[in-house]
């Protein structure tokens, strides 16, 4: 046996700690490829005993890239525990904050992390393939990306008091109303942000044809796609119902209540990664692999619902077909979502109702369970809390967007490895393509490995013939409180 294992350690220009391993057989063919996530923190356990009021501020620390998504999902779980309807202005302000984060996070993913591959080339010198290389070779694109991210971060700072981990979103609403002068400042900077988004989209479209090979093999294995949509089937980030479509675009399930996620999502573990493997329960593991995030959202939705984004979506679908399978198109979908988010930010800021000073509903604990769900930049995010009579957490359950792409990311790595690697001569640029396939998903491992599903424990006893002999099931609801 003359097999050889190639290890990429660490995977760089992603948000998190990971390695990739590729096992070659004696003939130098790829026998196995894996994406190993190497970080775990354990929020779900150590948050027990905390008051649910504290959870937005604590769970924001799960992730410095998308703290706002955790604030939103956590506060929504808190709203459910309070059993209140939050004031309309509070919902508008939460949406505004969340869209701002989508803009900054997507800008980070495209400009700061992935565009060096796309604009400098997958085979460019590794020392140059980063933001500073981009600044040196494409200063205008770099400047646009930096400014675009800055616009999102500035909205967060001016609304929430600080750019990272603002504590402004609270159960019942938000802490303070929007000041008219801040609204004017954000509206004044809006046209430049839209222009910067256009710069990114144009730059991407210019290089799209040159990357036809990568687009063809960056994770095209058929899988389900899941995302929230509104009542008209449009992309929805703050609330809505879950829609799941197959690789042909046909709905597998729709109108799912995301707060009942436990009915249809399961989580598997593998011994070689801290990142678990969520799957669509009716299809089982691993056949129930599904994808979330920008690509999935554009695949499940009928439209975005704003003019510029919908025009871009039409052109996108001309290139990709009604359902985009390749993970390479995550970049494209992300750029369209930036345009969509900016248009919605413009609409929210234009509406004087955003200045209403009634922004917080006040109540105490009225329910023992709350589930908060939102579409984070990387996909659907679930916060599930169970509290005692005093509002102390007895069980915390988080399902983070990135985990839901774990099966697809592994398949993408295997597909790219099988395509590019033959024999022992493995060029650096080939290894970079393996990483680039992962980057396309924009995984946030900082987040994802803090997630623990409160799924029932199911043990399948399988006979030597592969048939299920017996299934042992333990429901956590029966063991908690």
């Amino acid at each position, binding site marked *: 046996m003359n097999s050889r294992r190639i290890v990429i350690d660490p995977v*760089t220009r992603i948000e998190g700690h990971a390695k990739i391993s590729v096992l070659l057989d004696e003939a130098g063919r790829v026998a196995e490829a894996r994406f190993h996530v*190497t970080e775990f923190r*354990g929020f779900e356990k150590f948050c027990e005993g905390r008051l649910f009021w504290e959870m937005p501020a604590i769970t924001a620390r799960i*992730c410095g890239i998308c703290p706002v998504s955790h604030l939103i999902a956590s506060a929504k779980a808190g709203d459910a525990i309070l059993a209140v309807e939050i004031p309309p202005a509070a919902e508008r302000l939460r949406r505004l904050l969340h869209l701002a984060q989508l803009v900054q996070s997507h800008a980070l993913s495209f400009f700061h992390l992935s565009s060096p591959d796309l604009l400098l080339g997958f085979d460019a010198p590794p020392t140059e393939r980063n933001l500073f290389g981009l600044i040196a070779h494409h200063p205008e694109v770099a400047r646009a990306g930096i400014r675009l*991210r800055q616009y999102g971060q500035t909205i967060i700072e001016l609304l929430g008091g600080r750019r990272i981990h603002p504590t402004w979103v609270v159960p019942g609403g938000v802490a303070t109303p929007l000041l008219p002068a801040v609204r004017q400042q954000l509206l004044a900077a809006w046209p430049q942000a839209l222009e910067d988004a256009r710069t990114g989209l144009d730059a991407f479209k210019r290089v799209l044809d040159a990357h036809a090979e990568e687009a063809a093999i960056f994770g095209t294995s058929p899988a389900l796609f899941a995302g929230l949509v509104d009542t008209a089937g449009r992309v929805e980030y703050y609330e809505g119902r879950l829609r799941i479509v197959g690789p042909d675009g046909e709905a597998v399930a729709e109108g799912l209540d995301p707060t009942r996620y436990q009915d249809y999502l399961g989580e598997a573990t593998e011994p070689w990664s801290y990142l678990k493997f969520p799957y669509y329960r009716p299809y089982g593991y691993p056949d129930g692999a599904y994808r979330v995030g920008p690509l999935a959202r554009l695949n499940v939705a009928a439209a975005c619902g704003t003019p510029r984004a919908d025009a871009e979506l039409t052109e996108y679908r001309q290139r990709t077909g009604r359902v985009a399978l390749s993970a390479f198109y995550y970049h494209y979908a992300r750029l369209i979502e930036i345009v969509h988010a900016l248009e919605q930010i413009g609409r929210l800021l234009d509406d004087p109702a955003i200045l209403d000073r009634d922004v917080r509903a006040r109540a105490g604990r009225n329910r023992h369970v709350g589930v908060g769900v939102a579409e984070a930049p990387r996909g659907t995010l679930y916060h599930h809390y169970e509290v005692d009579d005093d509002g102390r957490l007895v069980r915390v359950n988080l399902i983070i967007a990135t985990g839901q792409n774990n099966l697809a990311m592994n398949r993408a790595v295997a597909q790219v490895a099988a395509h590019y690697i033959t024999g022992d001569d493995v060029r650096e640029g080939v290894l970079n393509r393996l990483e680039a396939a992962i980057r396309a998903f924009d995984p946030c491992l*900082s987040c994802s490995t803090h997630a623990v599903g409160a799924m029932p424990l199911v043990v*399948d006893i399988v006979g030597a013939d592969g048939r299920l002999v017996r299934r042992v099931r333990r429901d956590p609801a029966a063991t908690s409180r």
Partner: protein
Amino acid sequence: MADLPSSPGLPAGSDAPAARGERLRLATVWLGGCSGCHMSFLDLDERLLALAPRIDLVYSPLADIKTFPARVDVALVEGAVATSDHLELIYTVRARTRVLVAFGDCAVTGNVTAMRNPIGPAAVLQRAYVETASAGAGPPDDVLVPKLLARVVPVHHVVPVDVWLPGCPPSADVIYAVLTDLLAGRPPATGGLRFG
């Protein structure tokens, strides 16, 4: 920790890299944390463009160098020491870096990352990979997946730290001030300890 050499620090004044017309060899390191400190570094916004000609980013999650290089001038270390991989990396970082900056509250105190200490790694792993999994075989045990340490500790519990840069995260303004001071060969003024 006592037997490790203390850092000689950056040359001062006219010997500073900037004064010699050299670029600062900067590394950024991410241990157990949320990446918020790295995000705050990117919040330098257009000041990154001004910084670009003055630094070489020789190692970072934002760059593609896989091995921590020799002769690093300044390393910003985010996060607490929480896994066997972190431990291995921080020893290398210390041995090859002149000025090691504890970058943010997790690096300075352990902060949120250390909140699992009263519970311990076995219980958090049990919860994540046994009690709540619906398929699979328990916690990771592959050679490529690091072990959780029994206790999460701040960086200075493992290696000497030269500069403290607290905050959750430190603001971009403070990061910029520290980098500017280090570029000029001045001892950085971090504005005193500030948490949260």
